[in-house]
């Protein structure tokens, strides 16, 4: 009698563990709170739309996708704990993290747990460590720095250019690459400085730039600091142009910097919104009152990538999925994606953009 009861109890537990409807948990992770929260918001909106569309098509291998959202606030310690939580939730695919300094430590957790990830982090170290599970759907800072540095050296020939970073893995990496590319083109940076992100007062830096007659500042870091620097430069009567990286796509830059935002140039992949294949999806986002700027379409593409790779592999297990991701070419809203042996996107391009009246477009 006791034994049958025990067996029944075991059976009941077993029944609880297997959900009635098969669902596949996939995850996004990034700064959902903190000073870069607006980027996290873009990622979430893109992923939610993609998953709704995929589920409307019948899901992946007959199973519906469910989205898990991890908030690392761009803090490397929190990123590792988010990664552990996600592993415990049994996710089969991760789109994230966003900050390079979060992606790098978190990827160590995912590789141990055999979870493939697609990231937009641009620091070269993300794919240079020989991890097999990581795929980058964005370009790298060395490519980005090359484009930015060459542009600065040719378009602002003879002007004084300073290179400044925020000491983060992303910011310093990008600034170093820009400085290298500039020097190679014969334009040595007039000043090389670092600031502390999260502070409010950058008048010291601004005054220094003004003393040295700097007209252009190449900046490795995030949009919040650029907005503050531009505002304080205006107060100090300094006419400053800023060249930044992919993080400057954030429209919060415009609200915080005001009209001075028109002085911001940045490098980013060719605008996916201009991709004719993406038009129906872009329309759909706009109908839902979401402007598919910045990382929105990247998150959408990451989910498409998973859908197509899992369909090709006929499985969501790590080994076949990883093989499919590495070998295939995938049609997504950001264009065709294919990866090299390191996991870098094979044909990533960077273009220089300029903010103008609250919109960004290719710089002439």
């Amino acid at each position, binding site marked *: 009698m006791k034994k049958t009861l025990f067996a029944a109890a075991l059976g009941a537990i077993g029944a609880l563990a297997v959900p009635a409807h098969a669902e596949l948990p996939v995850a996004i992770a990034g700064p*959902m*709170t*903190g*000073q870069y*929260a*607006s980027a996290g918001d873009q990622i979430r909106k893109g992923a939610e739309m993609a998953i709704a569309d995929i589920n409307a098509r019948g899901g992946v291998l007959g199973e519906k996708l469910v989205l898990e959202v991890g908030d690392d606030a761009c803090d490397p310690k929190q990123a590792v704990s988010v990664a552990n939580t996600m592993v415990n939730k049994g996710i089969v695919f991760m789109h994230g993290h966003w900050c390079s300094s979060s992606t790098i430590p978190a990827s160590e957790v995912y590789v141990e747990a055999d979870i493939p990830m697609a990231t937009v982090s641009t620091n070269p170290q993300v794919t240079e460590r020989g991890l097999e599970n990581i795929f980058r759907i964005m370009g790298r800072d060395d490519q980005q720095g090359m484009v930015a540095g060459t542009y600065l050296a040719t378009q602002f020939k003879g002007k004084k250019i300073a290179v400044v970073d925020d*000491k983060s893995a992303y910011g310093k990496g990008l600034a170093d690459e820009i400085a290298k590319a500039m020097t190679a083109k014969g334009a040595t940076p007039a000043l090389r*400085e*670092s*600031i*502390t992100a*999260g*502070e*409010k*007062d950058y*008048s*010291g*830096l601004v*005054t*220094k730039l*003004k*003393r040295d007659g700097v007209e252009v500042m190449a900046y490795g870091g995030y949009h*919040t600091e650029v*907005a*503050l620097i531009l*505002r*304080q430069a*205006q*107060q*100090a*009567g300094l006419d400053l142009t800023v060249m930044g990286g992919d993080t400057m796509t954030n429209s*919060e830059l415009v*609200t*915080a910097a*005001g009209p001075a935002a028109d002085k911001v140039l940045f490098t980013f992949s060719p605008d996916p919104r201009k991709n004719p294949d993406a038009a129906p999806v872009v329309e759909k986002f706009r109908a839902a009152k979401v402007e598919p700027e910045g990382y929105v379409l990247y998150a959408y593409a990451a989910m498409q990538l998973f859908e197509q790779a899992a369909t090709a592999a006929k499985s969501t297990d790590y080994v076949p999925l990883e093989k499919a991701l590495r070998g295939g070419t995938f049609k997504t809203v950001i264009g065709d994606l294919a990866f090299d042996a390191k996991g870098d996107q094979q044909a990533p391009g960077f273009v220089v953009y300029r903010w103008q009246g609250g919109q960004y477009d290719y710089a002439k």
Partner: protein
Amino acid sequence: MAYALQQLINGLTLGSMYGLIAIGYTMVYGIIGMINFAHGDIFMVSAFIAVTCFTLLAAADVSSIPLALMFVLMVTIFFTSAYGWAVERVAYRPLRGSTRLAPLISAIGMSIFLQNTVQLTQGARVKPIPPVIEGGIELWAAPDFTVQIGWSQLLIIVTTVVLMTAFTWMITRTPFGRQQRACEQDRTMAALLGVNVDRTISLTFMLGASLAAVAGVMVSVYYGVVDFFIGFLAGIKAFTAAVLGGIGSLPGAMLGGLLIGLIESFWAAYLWAEYKDVATFGILCLVLMLRPSGLLGRPEVEKV
């Protein structure tokens, strides 16, 4: 030379704000001997109140800047001192007379509470406001560098000087100042002589919060962005200023604030900006080694 003058102006502006916040730390320490760790967050709350006011005024199409500033200052001071009063009433008064550590922990709890409340109700994003005061005056057009002082910088420095003068007068010359100093020296004796100790302590908290509120308005005018985390860094710096000047001493807090502002801007101007905070705290250690009670602090005399 002109460059140094410009950095001096930058440092004074930054230092004034640190000083205004530091007074809140030092006054509370003076009267009840505890560090009010929630003070930085009171400052953060005040900056949010100011930003909300500015946004409302912009929506109401108020174009007179002096009028708008006066209004925002008054509203912010009113609500922030209410916060200061409530924090003392809820988190510290019930613990008065218990161990020294209890209110300290309660202060840290209050700080986390305020931060999270603002994060949840106002959102985690930065809140920007359009520039309120633009432009400035050219002080000196040296051949290689033009020294400029922005109207908002001038406003910050002048407001701080005026407030400090008024404050010193209040503490040294008015009946409230006398009661405040009496409570500082000996709470029991003051109570025996008819001073309402609870009321004096409450007022002290409200005054500290009002000064933080002024700093909050200035921050939103000068920098134009606030987020729920600004209280932490500002609080740490202001607390350091209070310790540097000698905790418990009002002129000390002001001096400490100005010194930290100046060290920060001059270090960033002539040496490596990335080691700015290392320098600030290094100098703090040095001062405390040579003068353990701070620059203007009196050593505590143990009465036996």
